[in-house]
């Protein structure tokens, strides 16, 4: 879970609404804090930019959740040695 706060300066204005998956909509007022799934929080921050800030990433050691795999046709590609992902250091303070 990640706690997201709607910024006090309210760059989107009073009472904007975020449309979360599964009809879980959030009506924001300045300084309102809401717990979101890590994946939802990441996607909200991506489009919401400066309107939102991370208050607290619970279980902060959890690495970045895997992105939704986009359906792609399987295509033969050269074999390569996979380097381990260097995730886990991108959490915002």
């Amino acid at each position, binding site marked *: 879970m990640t706690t997201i706060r709607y910024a006090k300066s*309210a*760059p*989107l*204005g*009073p*009472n*904007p*609404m*975020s*449309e*979360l*998956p599964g009809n879980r*909509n959030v*009506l*924001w007022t300045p300084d309102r804090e809401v717990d979101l799934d890590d994946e*939802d929080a990441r*996607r*909200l921050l*991506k*489009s*919401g*930019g*400066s*309107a*939102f800030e991370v208050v607290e990433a619970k279980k902060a050691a959890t690495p970045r959740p895997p*992105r*939704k795999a*986009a359906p*792609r*046709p399987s*295509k033969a*590609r050269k074999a*390569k*040695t*996979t*380097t381990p*992902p*260097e*995730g886990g*250091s*991108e959490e915002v303070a």
Partner: protein
Amino acid sequence: MSTPATGTRVAVALARESHGWNRGGAEPLSAYRPNLPVSFLLTPTNTPGGLVLQSQTTPADLPGPITGAADLTIRATTRELLVFLEHLFGKVVKTTPTAGVKQYVFTWRPDEAVSSFWGFSSLPPVIRQYFYGLRFGKADFAFQSGQVVNMKLTGFVSQGSTLERADQETGTGTYALGPWVRGPLLDPDEGGLWFKIIVASDGTTDSTFKVVQSLDTPDAGDWTAAPTHTIYIPSSTGEGDWQDTGFGIFEAADKNLLEVLWPGAKADHSDLVAGDIFKCEAVIEDPILTYPSSLQTAFGLQHLGLFRRDLGAPDWESFSATSSTLSIDSPITARGGNGTLYYVGLDRLGSFLPTGTIVREFGDTWFESRRERRKLIELRQELVGPQIGSTAFRHTVRVDWAAAEITAQTRPAGNAGLVSETVTFAGRSDDSGSDPVTVTVITDYGFTLFADL
């Protein structure tokens, strides 16, 4: 079997470009619930070669300009109107009549805020795209008491991309301005683009980077094989500009580059650290969209008031009408360039032409006589919505026509019912270029002016 796109899931989100024309920005995306139809996708056109072969067959067309008509109709509340009125008019004067109430007055000075939009549009689950350099040239409103006011915006999109925006995958750099990408990826099945910083600026020197297309994390061999690019900073601006990555379309009859932009000057690029890796997925995921107002908190502007007087007369006279329209026309001219099929310029070159109509029961000859005598008149269209908190103010949009000319007037007796008079008028100026029309918006929303982004 794939799922086809439906109109119910169409999404449009916009934000003003604070990094400059066609360069995106940092403002949060605001999503809008469009009234259908809506059009926001870049579409290539064909230009017939004009040849007729002796075999009496026709050769293939040349690839024509990639045009992006942007048509968007949204419910106009005072919150939603502001950003678009600023975009069309340019000049905004903001005052605070009382605590919690803001007043914005818009006059046409297009050079004062040359704003443009970037954003996201999708026809899920089939197509999602980011676009840049959107300008609207026209806004149409239909006013009627007791009905929601919709605003129809018409314009053009300049550039777009079906790549996801960049995420920083690894590295300790704090550069957050980009990178941004635009253009078509030649082969999306080969994976997304990975950008690696090779040399970071010390604040005065150039930065270099490499680009690799890969389905999974590139290995050392991939990076070694990739050519090194220097972040392009034209000396004329001192700010990063679009440059080719080599992953676009560059075939015999076509040329549409996939470009990357590292916004900011060399000092901003010093936030990069050698080894930072940014990744753009080849497929855009659905963002979580935030709407600037909710249906529960923002009602329409349902009360229409109309006022008229002769030019310079002291007193307004209220009159009733069944409906009224306003059209703000500040035309955009699309400009093609060399080296790309996308528009390189959308210029606000045309004349400012505000027009309107009034439809009312034909009860007096006030408009008819003014038209016959070719007298200029003053008009006011006023839309009033909910009260703002416990103040004496209400959400209001007021359109003041300092000088309007009646350009057409009809009053046909169409049937046995009431005779309806339709008055068409246009804003007029004088030798000094005085403002034909001024729009005042009273709202509770603290709007950030384009100049302050």
